């Protein structure tokens, strides 16, 4: 829009060849060339049009059938999203949603990622949406005449607007606008309709479902309106600060990565959780080891430590093992063992001030991560709910939490496994191959049952893992094996020449892997990796086998078994499948954009 950018130069300053413009073909010619070019094609076109017509009519007949009970998903919408998150604390859920939208808005601006859509294209899309809406009214079986008229009239508006715009616009018009603006306008229109159109109000009061006429409840439309404003504001803030803030992308990337941890720990936790124990015990222990241990490591990594350092490290190791003989918190023992390990390896990091600082910094980071993980998995109701499996937000929230944590942890583990499997060192290769092949030989359901039901029986006395972390651990181990194979495929596609060139430049093995092979391998692996992520998202519904209330379980088993909505299974299932589709489709769209940006499949 306002920025003067040359179309041939990307943000990185590289020159990119402009795609050739697609020539304009009038619709009649396009139809003749593509749909009725040969008699055989014409038959196929007619046959498939008929098939699509019959299927659409059937689908519409289902959706608008008079015995459909759409009030079941409507009344249970909040239940599907967050299960039983307490009403008076619901602001936490909206805060989480707002946080994600704000980050999304900022990122869209920072990466300048919103695609642009041409005026003609937009007009065409508006016209087709209008035609589709009007067709609903014309095609749907069993609909009242006034209902049909309503759909046709509503559809006629965008249809007419689109057609008129196409007539006015020149055939070779090249003007375009941000797709973000278009999307915001569409969503704003939908939200405006929430305020004006009487969709009806579905509530659950005193143990009974109630349907009132009027627009949807205030508790739905008001937060949604605020959410829309949040993403718009975030986008424009992002655009304003982008030129002045060089590290914006790095900072946003970091926040995205930390978000699941921050949100589940601080926002979506059990609202009644008493953080006294956390403040009095967990955090002090973590701080003591981070700072005290950091000081010890600083001394030991000094060049002068020498023999003394090794003796000190050995003493720490003995003390760490001794801690298992006396009653002590498990986290202290774990931290002590880590400290002993770091102390023993400190001589490797001895040297310059910078190297020692990096060493101590790495130690502190590791302690924070390990302590967070232990607290999160071991302390009931901080993060993932009680060991009994009750979580304060089930439904879609649970599905998303399991998916995002699994992906975050499985990715580094899977890449490591792939590197190990392609390593020249037999010990790594054999171990990683054995791991991957073992895990791939086990069904996911078995993994879930093992981690949710068997693991608590196998843990030593005094150690506990709540159900959801146990499931996530199992899922991470499972996904990483598949992920490793995807990445290995990418690694093997890198030509021998790349390795040789890197070696000729004198790069070490680590440099060669991190700077030459891995980036190329990951780029090639994007399509299977995204496929894997979509699979992880959808297969998380298997947690129903261990009794966790995820989106699918609530839609399929819980809602149809309440006396208010007995047998109403297909409607909630349809809503759930739409949500799964929307999630999967947006992931695949995003990956397509990344692929295009990296020029995948074009060379």
């Amino acid at each position, binding site marked *: 829009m306002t920025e003067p950018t040359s179309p041939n130069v990307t943000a990185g300053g590289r020159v990119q060849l402009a795609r050739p413009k697609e020539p304009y073909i009038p619709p009649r010619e396009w139809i003749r060339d593509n749909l009725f070019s040969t008699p055989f094609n014409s038959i196929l076109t007619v046959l498939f049009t008929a098939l699509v017509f019959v299927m659409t009519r059937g689908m519409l007949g289902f959706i608008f059938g008079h015995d459909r009970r759409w009030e079941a998903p409507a009344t249970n919408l909040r239940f599907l999203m967050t299960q*039983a998150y307490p009403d008076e604390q619901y602001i936490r859920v909206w805060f989480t949603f707002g946080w994600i939208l704000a980050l999304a808005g900022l990122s869209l601006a920072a990466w300048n990622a919103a695609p642009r859509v041409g005026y003609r294209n937009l007009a065409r899309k508006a016209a087709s949406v209008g035609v589709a809406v009007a067709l609903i009214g014309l095609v749907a079986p069993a609909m009242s005449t006034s209902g049909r008229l309503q759909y046709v009239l509503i559809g006629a508006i965008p249809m007419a607007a689109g057609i008129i715009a196409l007539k006015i616009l020149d055939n070779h018009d090249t003007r375009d606008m941000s797709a973000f603006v278009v999307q915001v306008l569409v969503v704003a229109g939908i939200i405006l309709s929430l305020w004006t159109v009487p969709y009806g109000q579905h509530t659950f009061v005193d143990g009974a479902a109630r349907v009132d006429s009027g627009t949807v409840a205030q508790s739905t439309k008001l937060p949604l309106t605020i959410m829309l404003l949040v993403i718009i504001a975030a986008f424009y803030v992002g655009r304003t600060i982008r030129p002045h803030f060089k590290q914006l992308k790095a900072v946003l990337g970091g926040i995205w990565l930390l978000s699941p941890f921050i949100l589940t720990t601080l926002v979506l936790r059990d609202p009644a959780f008493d953080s006294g124990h956390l403040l009095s015990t967990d955090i002090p222990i973590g701080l003591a080891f981070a700072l005290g241990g950091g000081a010890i490591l600083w001394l030991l990594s000094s060049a002068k430590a020498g023999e003394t350092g090794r003796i000190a490290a050995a003493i720490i190791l003995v003390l760490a093992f001794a801690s298992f003989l006396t009653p002590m918190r498990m986290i202290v023992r774990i931290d002590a063992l880590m400290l002993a390990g770091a102390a023993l390896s400190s001589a490797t990091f001895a040297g310059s001030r910078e190297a020692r600082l990096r060493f101590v910094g790495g130690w502190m980071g590791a302690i924070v991560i390990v302590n967070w993980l232990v607290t999160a998995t071991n302390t009931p109701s901080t993060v993932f709910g009680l060991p009994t499996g009750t979580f304060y937000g089930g439904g879609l929230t649970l599905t998303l939490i399991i998916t995002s944590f699994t992906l975050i942890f499985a990715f580094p583990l899977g890449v490591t496994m792939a590197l190990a499997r392609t390593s020249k060192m037999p010990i790594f290769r054999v171990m990683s191959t054995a791991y991957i092949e073992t895990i791939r030989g086990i069904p996911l359901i078995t993994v879930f049952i093992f981690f949710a039901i068997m693991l608590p029986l196998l843990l030593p006395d005094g150690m506990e893992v709540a159900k959801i972390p146990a499931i996530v651990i199992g899922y991470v181990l499972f996904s990483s094996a598949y992920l490793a194979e995807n990445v290995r495929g990418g690694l093997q596609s890198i030509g021998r020449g790349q390795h040789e060139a890197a070696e000729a430049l004198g790069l070490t093995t680590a440099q060669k892997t991190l700077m030459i092979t891995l980036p190329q391998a990951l780029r090639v692996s994007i399509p299977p990796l995204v496929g894997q992520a979509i699979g992880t998202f959808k297969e998380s519904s298997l947690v129903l086998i261990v009794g966790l209330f995820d989106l699918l379980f609530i839609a399929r088993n819980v809602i149809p078994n309440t006396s208010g909505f007995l047998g109403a299974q297909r409607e909630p299932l349809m809503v759930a499948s739409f949500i799964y589709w929307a999630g999967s489709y947006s992931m695949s769209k995003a990956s397509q954009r990344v692929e295009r940006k990296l020029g995948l499949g074009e060379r």
Partner: protein
Amino acid sequence: MNKRNILRVAAVAAGFTLIAAACGDSGSGNNAADTTTTAGSTDTVAAVQQGGLLQAVQDRGTLNCGVSGSAVAFSETQPDGTTTGIDADFCRAVAAVVLGDANAVNFVALTASARFTAVQTGQVDVLMRNTTWTQSRDSDVGMDFGPTTYYDGQQLMARESDGFSADSTIADIAGATVCTNAGTTTEKNIAETAKVNGVDINLQTYEDYDIVMTNFLSGACNIITTDGSGLVGRKAKQQPDGENWVIFPATPISKEPLGPTYGQNDSQWADAINWTVYASIIFDEQGVTSANVDEMVANPPSPEIGRLLGGDGELQTAMGLSPDAFQNMVRAVGNYDEIYTRNLGPVGLKRAGSANARWTEGGLMFAPPAR
């Protein structure tokens, strides 16, 4: 090694010991990884092994009650997250007796396959998950069963227009398509019954009961079969106008006594749960309800009721409960009849004339005397 280096080693070691000691102190005496917050469940695991779950639950202050969460009228999860049903109400009753607060229940939804492990690992203190009392579960699986709260039994449901009536017998179903859900005892029961009676049926099984219902509604199934309570519920809610569904045979083809289930070898805990159920039955027998409980406390109709409500000579303290434990229970959730009517009435399950009627009226609801 020179003196300086020895000093340095000593300083490092001392510093480390200090950290460990500081942390160790707060956790000493308890081997638990996390004393305050996980204590409850850790104790539960220990308690299941050694007895004493009653004390553990009272220390924790909440009852972890295993329910189905998706069983009509037994334990339903409502849109606002609350759990209702007869099983859920007996969870509340136990909480009222043991803890004095009917709302101190943490409902844990369990699948059929996970339920017994959940008791064994201490995830739940008691199961109220429409679990049938069987010999193998009582012995081999390591469970103990409390008094039955609902006598169920497998029956069949068909359309009257197909020539069936409430007096139909198994012999009448020859050649019919019978549908039920796969991999359950229900499937085994109907197959065995048909074989014993020498009738050929076409048995179709589906993954879950809603699909069975859809097929019955569309006419793909002539007959469906499951526990009687489930059939009555479905008939009440899903029978279309102009059709009449009938449930038969009058004597169910299987016995399904449903009641509380808990880990074996903990008599004190078992007594607390058993007498919760018995008290609700006795209160029903003698007419103590949630409405008239104050009156009954002031002026008990019999010494038995007086003792149960916490008057003179009561026996609750010997059980490790507070004297007014059962009074709290009836005040909060009512007697057996109230619980039954509140939850099973709306789905059309009548108590009168069924196995769940009072023993004085020909039913099986009988409690030993409280004295």
